[in-house]
């Protein structure tokens, strides 16, 4: 008995000790939080993000979480005015196209230095353009997705890019002037020059740290030290560390930045994949803000004293229609019936966050080329039934694919959106076979590669202000996603993209948008939804960007 009592006492003592130690740590934590790491300096801003970056070389980035730290460390020649998708000077003060839009002359800022102390000048600009063109192997080219999208080819095409490169050459007549010559004009320019993937890197660092050393290893890619440990740009923050165990990225202020210096000393991105866990970290005071609060949490966060900053909408959600898989869907009356059956007002009101709007076409209103005269197709189930009857499809059955295990900025809750649409279609007399598939567990393959569906849900967040970035992506060519056989649409989109004069380019796309909704209707645009950012009330200067292109140098801790 005595021995067991002694054991019990020891166990209790251990428990008390653990709680005491934890309480001490709690006290220390409280002290730290109260100081906020601030004082005489700008302090440390800790921002919760949903995912880790693939690497730190913006050329090999293709997702928002990889772009986020890169945007703080790098600059582009042209950039987007904060809070908008409008262009403004970045590292280039001016950019002038030749008459045929195949030669772009950039007047550069002077006195700008990369983080390694080397000069940014026209030679550096040309070095970067030539590096992109001359990526050496299939692994590197396969990773440079935005470059190959924009410039269509490499000096020696090793991967899927098979075209002649749009980029031809670059010259540096003087240190402050870079002239980029293209093989053909393209309507995406100048907006595409602002893509984060086309950021300017230090030539010295690129060479020293084997930036192009992307290799295939087994079933994955490995990157050179430049992309993992030594990203070197001209931006307001410098790379300090990436703790892969704690999943924390630390950037330090660049005191030699050419523009407005960052207000905080350190910027930490803490990877917290779960939105609920991010919310609890914010509420507990261990982070200063986070991205993508769940729309269902917006109100409670606001009432909890946090600032929910809603971004301007810059995305589109659509109900996709695959004409190849189901012959009934090749009849435009059937596709129109689906559009009339869809109660988009109710969808936006009940399923999407504050700030969401009904889409009248396949791009948001802020993009040049938006046709303002287009009206939304009204919700009219009777008209839908009538059109189906005219088409001889009163007993239409469709396989409706929708994704699970995912939220996207344009689609916060796919299951609820599907359920609402399914009910709409049922009321119009359309039988829906529901086919849920996990986003990474077959959905994307089914939709984008195999085209085995009839209807599906998908969307797009724009990269820059150009209608081609939306409409051209969807309908510029035949894709298994839509199974369109009418090549007239592709030709019309191609002609609009090739129209390079900005005013004519926008007008051509306005007409494409009108024709898409009245003549082709290859899918049904549903909505545009704004994702949000949330920060503590002592954080100021966050400017929500429609392009999710927030720059943290403007942010300060109160």
């Amino acid at each position, binding site marked *: 008995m005595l021995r067991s009592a002694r054991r019990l006492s020891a166990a209790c003592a251990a428990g008390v000790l653990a709680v005491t130690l934890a309480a001490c740590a709690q006290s220390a934590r409280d002290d730290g939080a109260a100081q906020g790491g601030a004082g005489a300096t700008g302090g440390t801003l800790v921002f919760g993000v949903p995912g880790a970056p*693939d690497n730190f070389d913006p050329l090999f980035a293709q997702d928002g979480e990889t772009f986020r730290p890169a945007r703080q460390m790098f600059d582009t020649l042209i950039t987007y005015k904060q809070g908008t998708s409008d262009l403004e000077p970045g590292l280039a003060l001016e950019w002038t196209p030749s008459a045929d839009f195949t030669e772009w002359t950039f007047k550069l800022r002077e006195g700008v230095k990369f983080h390694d102390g080397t000069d940014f000048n026209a030679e550096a600009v040309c070095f970067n353009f030539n590096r992109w063109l001359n990526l050496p192997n299939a692994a590197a080219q396969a990773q440079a997705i935005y470059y190959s999208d924009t410039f269509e080819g490499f000096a020696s095409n090793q991967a899927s890019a098979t075209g002649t490169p749009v980029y031809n050459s670059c010259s540096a007549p003087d240190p402050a002037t870079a002239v980029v010559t293209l093989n053909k004009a393209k309507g995406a320019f100048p907006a595409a020059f602002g893509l984060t993937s086309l950021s300017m890197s230090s030539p010295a660092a690129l060479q020293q740290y084997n930036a192009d050393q992307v290799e295939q290893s087994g079933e994955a890619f490995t990157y050179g030290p430049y992309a993992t440990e030594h990203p070197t740009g001209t931006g307001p923050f410098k790379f300090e560390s990436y703790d892969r165990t704690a999943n924390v990225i630390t950037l330090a202020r660049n005191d030699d930045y050419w523009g407005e210096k960052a207000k905080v000393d350190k910027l930490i991105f803490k990877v917290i994949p779960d939105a609920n866990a991010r919310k609890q970290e914010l509420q507990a005071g261990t982070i200063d803000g986070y991205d993508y609060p769940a729309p269902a949490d917006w109100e409670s966060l606001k009432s909890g004293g946090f600032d929910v900053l809603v971004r301007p909408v810059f995305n589109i959600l659509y109900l996709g229609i695959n004409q190849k898989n189901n012959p009934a869907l090749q009849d435009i009356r059937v596709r129109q019936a689906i559009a009339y059956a869809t109660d988009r007002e109710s969808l936006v009101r009940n399923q999407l966050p504050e700030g969401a709007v009904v889409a009248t076409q396949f791009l948001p209103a802020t993009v040049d080329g938006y046709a303002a005269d287009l009206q939304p197709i009204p919700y009219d189930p009777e008209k839908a039934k009538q059109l189906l009857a005219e088409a001889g499809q009163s007993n239409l059955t469709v396989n409706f694919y929708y994704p699970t295990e995912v939220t996207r900025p344009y689609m916060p809750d796919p299951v609820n959106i599907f359920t609402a649409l399914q009910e709409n279609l049922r009321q119009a007399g359309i039988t829906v076979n529901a086919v849920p598939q996990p986003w990474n567990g077959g959905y994307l393959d089914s939709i984008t590669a195999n085209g085995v569906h009839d209807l599906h849900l998908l969307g797009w967040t724009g990269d820059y202000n150009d209608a081609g970035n939306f409409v051209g992506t969807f309908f510029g060519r035949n894709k298994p996603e839509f199974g369109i056989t009418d090549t007239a649409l592709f030709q019309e989109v191609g002609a609009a993209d090739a129209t390079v004069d900005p005013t004519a380019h926008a007008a051509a796309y306005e007409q494409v948008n009108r024709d898409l909704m009245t003549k082709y209707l290859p899918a049904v645009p549903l909505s545009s939804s704004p994702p949000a950012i949330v920060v503590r009330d002592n954080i100021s200067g966050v400017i929500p960007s429609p392009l999710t292109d927030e720059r943290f140098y403007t942010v300060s801790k109160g």
Partner: protein
Amino acid sequence: MLRFVLRRLLQVIPTLLLLSLLVFAWLRSLPGGPASAFLGDRATPERIAELNRVLGLDQPIFVQYGRFLGRVLAGDFGVSTITGQPVLAEIGRALPATVELSVTALVIAVGLGIPLGYLAAQHRGRPLDVATVIGTLVGVAVPVFFLGYLLKAFFAVELGWFPPSGRQAVDVDATNVTGFAVLDGLLTREFDASLDALDHLVLPAITLATIPLAVIVRITRASVLDVLGSDFVRTANSKGLTPGTVRSRHVLRNALLPVSTTIGLQVGLLLAGAVLTEKVFVWGGIGTLLADSITLKDYPRLQALLLLGALVYVLVNLLVDLSYAIIDPRVRLS
């Protein structure tokens, strides 16, 4: 004994080979793949095909398996498709986190479970016993993720006593020696780092410990009650031994035998529970690696985790067989 051990170790080789083939084929039979997971809504048929080609995923499966086997036999489990980092290094970084969490949870479960079970049995039918029985029922029934969120909401968000997630605060300057955050702080005399790590450990460890704690309490209680009613205890009492001697020498010792077996079983369950606990508390251990790898179709990482897990399982089984022979001479190793 030596021959037995060698034979068993040799048996491990075909077992792992067969398993590697099954894991390899199973992963590739699942819908989706690393290419579409990597590309997300930027996936096009051309890009998916191109990435599959560059990564060799368009080759016949036996060719892929042959390459994989060749690399594994050379000790190379490949590189994560998510991070581009060597898989073994990632597992090496994550393992201490899971071990630290699981061991702490086990210590809590055993340290509290045996005394509580013993006390409940001694006070059979009285309020302490009733409360313990009800408490353990709840403990066994409550889902780990629900309890985790509940504890976080109350102790981290409402009261602010503990941090809600992670292993260490971002502003703590800690030196990594062994990967065990609490231990590293002690070894390097960075006591603030150690305290901070302990602070982070409390809620996840309690969450993970709840189910094994409840099980151990119930088994201990039942076992003690069983032993209390046995003949040898009656004999010991009738010999005139003091109640204390009877309980400590006869009751507790015999009652703990089934409890030991239960604790052994709970170790496996703890590792399974760690996956959910790590998810809730963003713990960054093996469970997190496994969950991320499944979501993002990281074949190399999944293959390594499943094969190493199987290896550990096979070796632990061997150790258990050996320990039986040592504990009970009647067991013949053959």
